């Protein structure tokens, strides 16, 4: 197993867990009362925590793609809530502090890590379709040889 890939996977898993845990915490501590946004926090929290566990366990690359899409979606939702509003819900600046800043950092980090992982695996992906590989590049190719 490539050590660099393992480190990338662990940090990615941690960033997802942080974002998911903060959304779950905010859901429990008041956001569940906000229509549409509250359930969104519940879904984000549970999906990100699940992705963190599965990616840490060495899940396939498409899990990282899902994580990147989720992180991008969360960032878009964050921007909307600070500009035109999200389902009529608006917040200001980096409130609630420090949670807003923590999740934005975690989600940007998620996007960067998934991007880095994808770039590192690109040469191999030309031989093996992305979907057939595990995120750390192990498992699938060898099993195919068998």
């Amino acid at each position, binding site marked *: 197993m490539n050590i660099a890939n393992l480190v990338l996977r662990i940090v990615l898993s941690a960033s997802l867990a942080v974002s998911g845990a903060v959304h779950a915490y905010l859901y429990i501590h008041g956001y569940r009362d906000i229509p549409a946004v509250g359930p969104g926090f519940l879904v984000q929290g*549970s999906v990100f925590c699940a992705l963190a566990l599965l990616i840490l366990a060495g899940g396939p690359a498409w899990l990282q793609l899902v994580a990147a899409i989720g992180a991008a979606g969360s960032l878009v939702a964050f921007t909307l809530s600070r500009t035109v509003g999200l389902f009529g819900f*608006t917040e200001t600046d980096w409130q609630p502090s420090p949670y807003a800043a923590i999740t934005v950092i975690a989600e940007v980090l998620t996007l960067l890590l998934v991007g880095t992982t994808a770039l590192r695996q690109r040469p191999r992906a030309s031989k093996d379709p992305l979907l057939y590989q595990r995120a750390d590049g192990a498992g699938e190719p060898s099993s195919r040889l068998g």
Partner: protein
Amino acid sequence: MSADNDPTGMTRRQLIRHGAWFGAAVVLTVAGGEVISHVAGAAGSAGAAQQSRPALRFAQISDSHIGFTGPANPNVAETFSHAIGQINSLGYTPDFVIHTGDLTHLATPAQFDQVKQMLTGLNTPRVFTVPGEHDSTDDAGQKYRQAFGAGTRGDGWYSFDIAGVHLIGLVNTLNMQKLGHLGTDQLEFIEKDVAGLSSDTPIVVFSHIPLFAMYPDWGWGTEDAAQALSYLKRFSSVTCLNGHVHQLFSKTEGNVTFYSGTTTAYPLPPPGQGPAPKPVTLPAGKLRDALGIREVSYTKGQQALALKDQKLT
């Protein structure tokens, strides 16, 4: 099977493996959601939710213009009544409802009677108001204060505290030329009113005309608001809610966030669009999209208030 040997396709073993990962993702997500919901529910039933639930929830309505007749809204009483019904259907009882002015269109005793009667239909313990310029055109707000001035100071301003939040109702529609005007007495009131408060007390300010320069050419601003806001500078969270402009708008200046609310009567054009802010007649069926109500909540431990604007359904 041919797919098992296809170098570009997915083998059955790989398909099963990916299916297993997908299944695990679904199971973990559902389990995680259950755990989070359970924790949230337990927190609520154990009383811990007293801290996590919004400590304060109120609704804002504005610019009902009872008595207005025109093609922009042929029945303002009906749309106002609908807004009241929508607040009563929020699913909870708001701690209070604030009407941010222009309750009436021409400030006649009959219009004040009508709007006061209609406001009694709100399912809330308290209703607060601030006057709009339509409520105080011909008598410096005398009829307004007769109808809604009980318990207020000066020309109708006041303050109160709920759930650790300090709320201030201001009158900026008297003695005005073009822009809103607070005046020396009211500025002194604000200064003294907040003097004894700790800086982490959330402050909410109600006024009819915006306290920020939304569009001064149309009078959408208050000439001496800077002085009032200087007394609020030390507070970590200041939220100003206003009416008057008949449209949603928000702006942040330092620690202060301004939110203009919409109307229950008729829309006005966006700032600068056209020569003057005249009622806009929308195509049939589109009026209610421009009207609405606002929910505001404050949760202890969070600096900013959460706002949710709803169109009239």
